[in-house]
């Protein structure tokens, strides 16, 4: 049985008339990098807030690291960035981290050095937080989240405001943390980023869970091949009539067929029976972004 680190059961949050999170049930397995995706206002940050005990659920329940609700003991095993990292503007990056380390009842200057080095802030560690760029603030937020080597990381848009190089560094860092056994709940509007680092995802829209699962498993039914034949019109008729083919359409000068890549040989066999021969065939990679747009019905408004 898989060890579940985060489990929510019909978790609901209502702000007056607005239903921010609607009976959300999620399971995040231990050791997974888990993506939480959703369009603007989907409720991702509210979910994170509830898990961290910052927002009180209207109904439902959840368990974190095996304990019901947000116990303070559990929180000490969790590192988090929620929205834009907030720190004391007049304190340096190092002193901000020292403060939060102290709040956690620890005092380990070497850990501060290591984390500041890890997130690439060692050179600006003694500068006031208010002088940092958004990307640097995000880096400090990551260092804060990693204080105390937490088992579980909740990262809400961790690359927000970073330049491409910084984003790549953070992706690498997240992958490394995941491979070291940390469980990570990553909320991001950068679907490409999520696809690159996450093992599993949950897509929520209007506070409701749309779909949850392993990234590869979710995308597999969406796999498509693009082919050309000796008679595309006849081929399309054959393919649309065939039970084993989920979908087929003409697109530009070719046909696009929804079928698992490893089953593409069945296509050629099916068509050749009717004396239609495949002249060209290539797998089409369906991105998580395309999948996300399909399941949420979004058309371009994907940022949160």
């Amino acid at each position, binding site marked *: 049985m898989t060890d579940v680190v985060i489990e929510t059961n019909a978790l609901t949050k209502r702000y007056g008339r607005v239903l921010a999170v609607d009976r959300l049930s999620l399971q995040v397995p231990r050791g997974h990098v888990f993506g939480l995706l959703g369009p603007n206002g989907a409720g991702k940050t509210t979910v994170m*807030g509830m898990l*961290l*005990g*910052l*927002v*009180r659920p209207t109904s439902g329940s959840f368990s974190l690291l095996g304990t019901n609700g947000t116990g*303070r*003991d559990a*929180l*000490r095993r*969790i*590192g*988090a960035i*929620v*929205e*834009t*990292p*907030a*720190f*004391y*503007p*007049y*304190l340096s990056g190092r*002193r901000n981290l*020292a*403060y*939060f380390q*102290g*709040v*956690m*009842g620890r005092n380990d200057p070497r850990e501060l050095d290591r984390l500041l080095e890890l997130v690439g802030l060692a050179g600006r560690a003694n500068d006031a937080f208010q002088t940092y760029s958004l990307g640097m603030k995000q880096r400090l937020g990551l260092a*804060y989240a990693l*204080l105390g080597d937490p088992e579980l990381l909740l990262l809400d848009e961790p690359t927000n405001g970073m330049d491409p190089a910084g984003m790549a560094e953070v992706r690498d860092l997240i992958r490394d943390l995941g491979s070291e056994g940390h469980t990570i709940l990553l909320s991001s509007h950068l679907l490409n980023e999520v696809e690159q680092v996450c093992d599993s995802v949950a897509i929520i829209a209007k506070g409701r869970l749309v779909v949850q699962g392993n990234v590869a498993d979710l995308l597999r039914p969406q796999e498509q091949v693009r082919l050309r034949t000796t008679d595309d019109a006849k081929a399309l008729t054959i393919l649309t009539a065939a039970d084993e083919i989920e979908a087929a359409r003409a697109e530009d000068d070719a046909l696009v067929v929804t079928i698992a890549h490893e089953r593409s040989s069945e296509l050629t066999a099916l068509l050749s029976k009717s004396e239609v021969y495949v002249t060209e065939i290539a797998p089409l990679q369906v991105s998580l972004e395309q999948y996300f747009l399909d399941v949420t019905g979004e058309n371009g408004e994907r940022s949160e």
Partner: protein
Amino acid sequence: MFQMIGEVLTLTRWEWFKLRRRRVPWILLAVSVLLLQIAYWVAYAVSRIGEDVTFGAGGRVSVGGDFHEVLAFPNSAGIGLAFSHGFSAILIMILAVSLTGSEYGWGTVRTVLARGAGRWQLLASKLILVSILGAAALIAGTLALAISSLVASLTVESSDWIAASARWGEFARIFGKTVYGLLPYVVLAVFFAVVTTSSGAAIGLGLGYVLAENIVVGILSSFEWFERASGFILGQAVEVWLESADQMSLDAVSAGQPDALQGFLVSLAYIVVLSGLAFWIFQRRDIAGAKGE
């Protein structure tokens, strides 16, 4: 229980770690010492010309007459404390709001709580720190007054800067009462900060409350019925408590002196009720992100 106390003390220590690096407490301390010095040197000037004026609520301290009696240390500190309560209350409110309300503006309350700091422990640590700093500011002001007494004594023939009739016990009593008199204002300020989740609004409400109270008391004091009711107004209750400072001891309070006892109890009621409400709201309310103040 000991673990909880330990957590509060740890948080208090780290609250001080960050607060001492802000300008606000040092500016407030400088203002506080400066005002005490002004009070002292005005009293000194008056004493030199032989006039008799009074300082503090209800005319508690007279500065006319012999330098030894009132302007030598520690008696001079009594003048300072008597004079200082009005502005000390405002300064301590600004400090309390600054320590609590700013956390909402910066969004750092969320960052702190997300790493496992307990809510009531965090609020308690802020209340404790502000109270300690209020007392520390009074001590700093007192020490500055001691130096002033030393300097002033050099201008007076045959005078020692320590009063021959030093009333140390009375000074300690006034000091304790003054600190206690600040506590309702600390709690009031923190309450406003928690309710408004804004340092600006909380300072406005705090100062507005003090001002409104003075106006209401000024207007209604001519009515006979108000005389009894006024004892339940915070400022009046604290004033009654402080007025008794140079007349009676805490023993006298426990012995049942009506005005002082009422002042003590009404102040205590404000402390308990306002801090209880502040803790309850802070414990239950959702914590939003930075408000960008």
